[in-house]
């Protein structure tokens, strides 16, 4: 392999990337609707499982230090079987990146640029992501360092502003667990577990490139915990402002909540703050999945991933539009097909199947060394 640059992310950059990635599109579309007014509890439970998922992925990587998930596949299954699995993961990452991009395009064309075609929004976003990835994952990390204060403070400010506007009705959160634990369980399995927490699988291609791998475990846990808290905060904000029915019906509940802000009859229509949060979240999320797919192509083609950035970006743009004809179809696919046929196998089943082989192989090599 020639001209392949070794990139290093600092732990702080890793924390920020995971934090923004987890909030990303989960903050935009309504999550945990099955749990109704207990969606925030469901998110809390899912966050605890998310910590476990993070630990599992870290454990997988720690068995073969310095290797990413795809290299582990090749180590365990050999060149051809491993290669086939890598291609499947590349397709998975591309498909999810396209879906996430479509979420943003729909938001923009429904609320902000109503006359602008979805295609144009998709192309402009992908151009930005292509440029960022062409310069490397380090650039994405450094850019995130710049934007994180705005990202974080805007999320908090929206909640405070809605509260001061007097639009929050905390009785909407009652009764707590009125229908028992069943709706919460239904919301957590498999939906909240796979989206957003299971999507951490994409980070198995980034974590090996952190400056201090040993310390990355704590960082992953911290980032998942922090993003889980923000998602709970968001869910409480949305339920208290819109109510259960309105939240379930709204395509973009955070945006609908932000539209209720009216401070001193002067500060109104702060939609742009939400759009900023969503836009940056989507850039990072698409970027991370895109990077995952690129690392797979790099391994298979033995060429630097930068050579594949533009062609793959073109495919993601194309798919984001062709993936569904309208937003209803897009959501239907996201609720029915994606969790069962994509998320669960690729996030849990395949890594779990690989684990015993990895343990056996690494044990064998350890014994050999001894």
């Amino acid at each position, binding site marked *: 392999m020639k001209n392949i640059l070794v990139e290093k992310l600092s732990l702080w950059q890793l924390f920020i990337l995971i934090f923004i990635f987890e909030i990303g599109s989960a903050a935009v579309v309504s999550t945990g609707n099955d749990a109704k007014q207990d969606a925030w509890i469901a998110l809390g439970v899912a966050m605890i499982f998310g910590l476990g998922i993070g630990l599992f992925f870290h454990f997988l990587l720690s068995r073969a230090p310095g290797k990413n998930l795809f290299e582990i596949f090749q180590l365990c299954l050999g060149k051809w079987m491993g290669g086939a699995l890598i*291609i499947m993961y*590349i*397709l998975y990452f*591309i*498909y999810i990146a396209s879906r996430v991009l479509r979420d943003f395009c729909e938001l923009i064309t429904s609320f902000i640029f109503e006359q602008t*075609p*979805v*295609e*144009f929004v*998709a*192309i402009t976003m*992908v151009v930005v992501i292509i440029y960022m990835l062409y310069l490397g994952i380090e650039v994405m990390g450094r850019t995130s360092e710049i934007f994180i204060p705005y990202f974080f403070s805007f999320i908090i400010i929206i909640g405070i502003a809605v509260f001061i506007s007097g639009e929050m009705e905390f009785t909407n959160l009652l009764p707590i667990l009125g229908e028992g634990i069943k709706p919460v369980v239904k919301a957590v399995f498999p939906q909240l577990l796979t989206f957003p927490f299971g999507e951490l699988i994409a980070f198995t291609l980034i974590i090996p490139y952190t400056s201090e791998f040993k310390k990355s475990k704590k960082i992953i846990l911290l980032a998942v915990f922090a993003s889980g808290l923000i998602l709970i905060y968001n869910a409480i904000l949305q339920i208290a402002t819109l109510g259960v029915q309105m939240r379930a019906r709204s395509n973009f509940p955070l945006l609908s909540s932000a539209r209720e802000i009216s401070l001193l009859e002067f500060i109104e229509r702060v939609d742009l703050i939400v759009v900023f949060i969503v836009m940056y979240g989507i850039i990072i999320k698409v970027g991370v999945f895109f990077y995952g797919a690129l690392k797979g*192509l790099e391994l*298979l*083609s033995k*060429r630097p991933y930068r*050579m*594949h950035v*533009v*062609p*793959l*970006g*073109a*495919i993601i*743009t*194309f*798919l984001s*539009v*062709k*993936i569904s*004809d309208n937003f209803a*179809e897009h959501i*239907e*696919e996201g609720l*029915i*097909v994606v969790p069962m*046929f994509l998320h669960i196998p690729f996030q849990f089943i395949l890594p779990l199947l690989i684990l015993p082989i990895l343990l056996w192989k690494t044990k064998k090599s350890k014994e050999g060394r001894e």
Partner: protein
Amino acid sequence: MIILVTFMFCLIFCASIGVITVFDLYLYNQPLLTIVKANVSFQRGTSQWMIYSVLLVGFCYSIGVDYRVRKNKKTSKSS
């Protein structure tokens, strides 16, 4: 392989179309050909020409990359 980037581009593109076709088949129970046609064909009167242009740019770029790699290989061999 000399045309690796172009090959990968075509492979990933075809496989991705395959993936979305399978999902549409599962959800809508329409004939396979109808779904493939809807996923690949260009709908006139829409702005879809933009994404087809981008796809063309991606394809041309991958050919360009392969050409450059081949040229570099030849130069290094001759020197």
